């Protein structure tokens, strides 16, 4: 039995436990996004699955990217290296772009398919 039947997906997205499943998807997505670059896409896929619509999937992906970037900034702040990291210029900018784009593409991509 597939986990991604239309009924189950509808249950996830609009059922009584939709909030909980969204929260779980963000938590797992954040973990995945923080451990590997591909995890940003995988995390995006997770939050995209629980998004009730395509526009919401885009938003969820961007939210997840924002969360990962927030964790990133805070961790560098605590490591005392945020200013130096920001000083890397294009690499730091690319980090922001990847941080937002990959989860968003993952979320949109999966939500468009299922």
């Amino acid at each position, binding site marked *: 039995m597939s986990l991604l039947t239309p009924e189950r997906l509808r249950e996830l997205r609009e059922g009584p436990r939709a909030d909980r499943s969204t929260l779980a998807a963000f938590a797992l997505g954040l973990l995945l*996004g*923080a*451990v*590997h*670059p591909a*995890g*940003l*896409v995988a995390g995006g896929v997770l939050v995209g699955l629980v998004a009730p619509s*395509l526009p919401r999937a885009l938003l969820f992906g961007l939210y997840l990217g924002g969360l*990962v*970037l927030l*964790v*990133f900034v805070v*961790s*560098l702040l*605590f*490591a*005392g*290296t945020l200013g*130096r*990291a920001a*000083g*890397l*210029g294009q*690499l*730091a900018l*690319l*980090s*922001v772009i*990847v*941080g937002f*784009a*990959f989860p968003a*593409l*993952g979320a*949109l*991509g*999966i*939500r*468009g*398919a299922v």
Partner: protein
Amino acid sequence: MQSEYLGVAVTLVCAALLVTAATVAGGFVSLAAPVSGEAWGPAYGANDGSPSDSLARVATGPTRIENPYGTARVSYDRDGVPHITAGNTEALYFAVGYVHARDRLFQMDLQRRLMEGNLSAAFGAGTLDSDRFHRRMGFDDAAEASWAAVEGSEAGAGVRAYTAGVNRYIEAEPLPLEFRLNDYRPTRWEPTDTLLVGKLIAWRLTGDFRDLRGRVLERRLPEAASLYPRQLDHESSILGRADLGGTSGTLGSPASPAVAEAGPDAATGETADDHRGLYDSLRRYQRPPGIGSNSWVVGGEYTASGDPILANDPHLSLTVPPVWYEQRLVLTGEASMDVRGVAFPGQPAVVIGQNREIAWGFTNVGADQTDLYDYVRPGEETYRYRGEVREVRRRTETIPVKGGEDAEVTVERTVHGPLIEHEGEAVAVAWLGLAGTRELRAVHRLNRAGSIEAVDRIVRRFDSPTQNLVAMEGDGGTYFRLTGRYPIRTVDGERVRGDRVFNGSAGHGEWAGWEPYGEADWNGSGFVPYEAVPHAVDPGYVATANQRTTDDPPFYIGSSTRYADPYRGARIYDRIEDRVGSGDPVTVEWTRDLQRDTRSAAAAQFVPHVLNATDEMSPEARAAAGTLEGWDRRMDRDSTAALYFALFRERIRNATFYDEFHPAGLDAGYYPHLWTVGELPADSRWFDDTRTPERETRADVVARAFERAVAATEREGYGTYGDYNVVDLDHQFPVAALDYPEAPTDGSPFTVFNFRTGAGTQAGSSWRMVATTGEGSVGVVPGGQSGVYYSPHYRDQLATWREGGYREIPFESGGPTVLVFEDEGEGS
């Protein structure tokens, strides 16, 4: 239905974008991805004072690392200087290796790659020429020879422990950013890599091909011989102006018959080549011009405290990160030691610094340590040697090239050393450092020397490079000595100078008992006895600035082409003599002021020439020359006169010599010393422009050079010296963020406060130190302690250095213990 199509389309577009990003920019994504990107790994743990590291230390204590040699503790002070304490030498050196790798691993790897000829494996085909040269020279084999000479000693055991410490870091800790950006990993550190770092330093200080240069000049412009005298016409030699009252030692004396040396025509090669092509292909690898240093020691009879004061600032290439790494090493127990100063990353011991009893420093002698030999060649693979035909020893090495096909280089050697060839011209190179030298042992022992007597005994093993060593001890002793070994060259039984290409086929000029890549009989007949090398015990004061050692050397040390112009040396002696003569005591503050002295003796020499040439100048240039009147001769950043003078100084030699040298195929690299130009009589033939029918004099040439300087000032938009004299230090790795920020500074190549700007690698004070007994010593490096980009100590000393400032370098840390090395088996 329509929305389903839209969904599929969105999915396809997203998939296409992700696949494109992964294939086209996958490497950059892996680097830059937030949190997990490769580029950010080194950012965590790079700041020992950060909240996360401080909290971690509170929660779990310092980072614990297993050490097979015993326990050690590392704290970093507020400037990022490690204070390392251990119970035995090997435990200490293991920790030093770990700490060096933690702060400077990329630099260490780059240095060994350069010397072993392995840059292309990491950086691609652009470095192949460098790799070929270094492999032909066989520096790695020389390092093996030196390792064989030290591995059985206590220092050798220390190097093994140091090596293990470096490798422990490589195995367990995040690699620096540079490795990640360039996508390669360092190989394991080997003991010979530590020796290779030593060869790098020694080569940069004593390795040159100036004998080829002399030959080119001799063949192409023989009338210029008087421009390259054995001694420059000045009176500021090191021992000539030192206060040697009451001193014992070998101070130099007129050559006795036993060491009489023949002139430069006593031996010549037998081939007709002038070797210009060969020299031009090699000169980029020799000791760069402008590499020099200052040092002086003043005895207690002249100081306010009654204790000696020692100053040293070695002028080396200014790099990112700096050449030097500051550290304090403490041994507890019976073999107690407490030393601090600077080391070369890759070598464990302090090279310049002080312990609780003594302080010491080095400058380069400029001695001739490289002899060249050419041969009669019956065939491409043979050479004639002492009446027989010998095979050139050859082997082919493969050079791995990143992103390209492997390349090959043929390594050739003769009885004298590596045979270096370029377009059919070849010479064998005997560089003293190609044999098994033992300076690593000497420096190791120097760290724990307790007296001048001990220093004198220890430095006996300091085989290479040749250095002016100044030292002091707390009880009042002072010391000066030339370190290193001085080869004795003979031709047909007669001692000769080394400043020529020798006839290798006849066996001329060989160093008895010296074998390239092998052992050397340093105490044999091939080298000047240690006791005969100039040294002075308890001089009142002595100052070195790479000028010649003495006016009457007891043996051939070097020629004027290898010594520095006398400007810095003269200025230092002027000020010391004035101070001592005035009766005012020398203090640490006064010594610091002298180290920051920007008054140019070169300006004092040339400005009168400029002011005497104003009649030959345009009104505009004459007005500019007017700024030199009343100028205090200080090369300060806010000075317009200093700007004009610096640009004039850059041009005067070309204005003087171009018309004769260029037609002979000789570029600016062949011009004589600036001092020589300044001392030429006003009607010297060299001031005549051979391209004009008129007979020009000094005034004409000086005016021409000054006109060009003024034009350059306007062309470049310079307003003051600081617009031109900019510290602009770039990292070897071409990522702009890794470079230091640009800013103006004071000083010039010819002032005590030393800085050489211009294209290419800049040079200047690579470590500025004033040492005295007990507390009160100060120092500064041009950048920061850490080579880790994310560290707060990456360049935190740069502004202080640029402004001529210092930091205290006390024998205490004040910082928290960050690393604890535990004996394996102790556990945590």
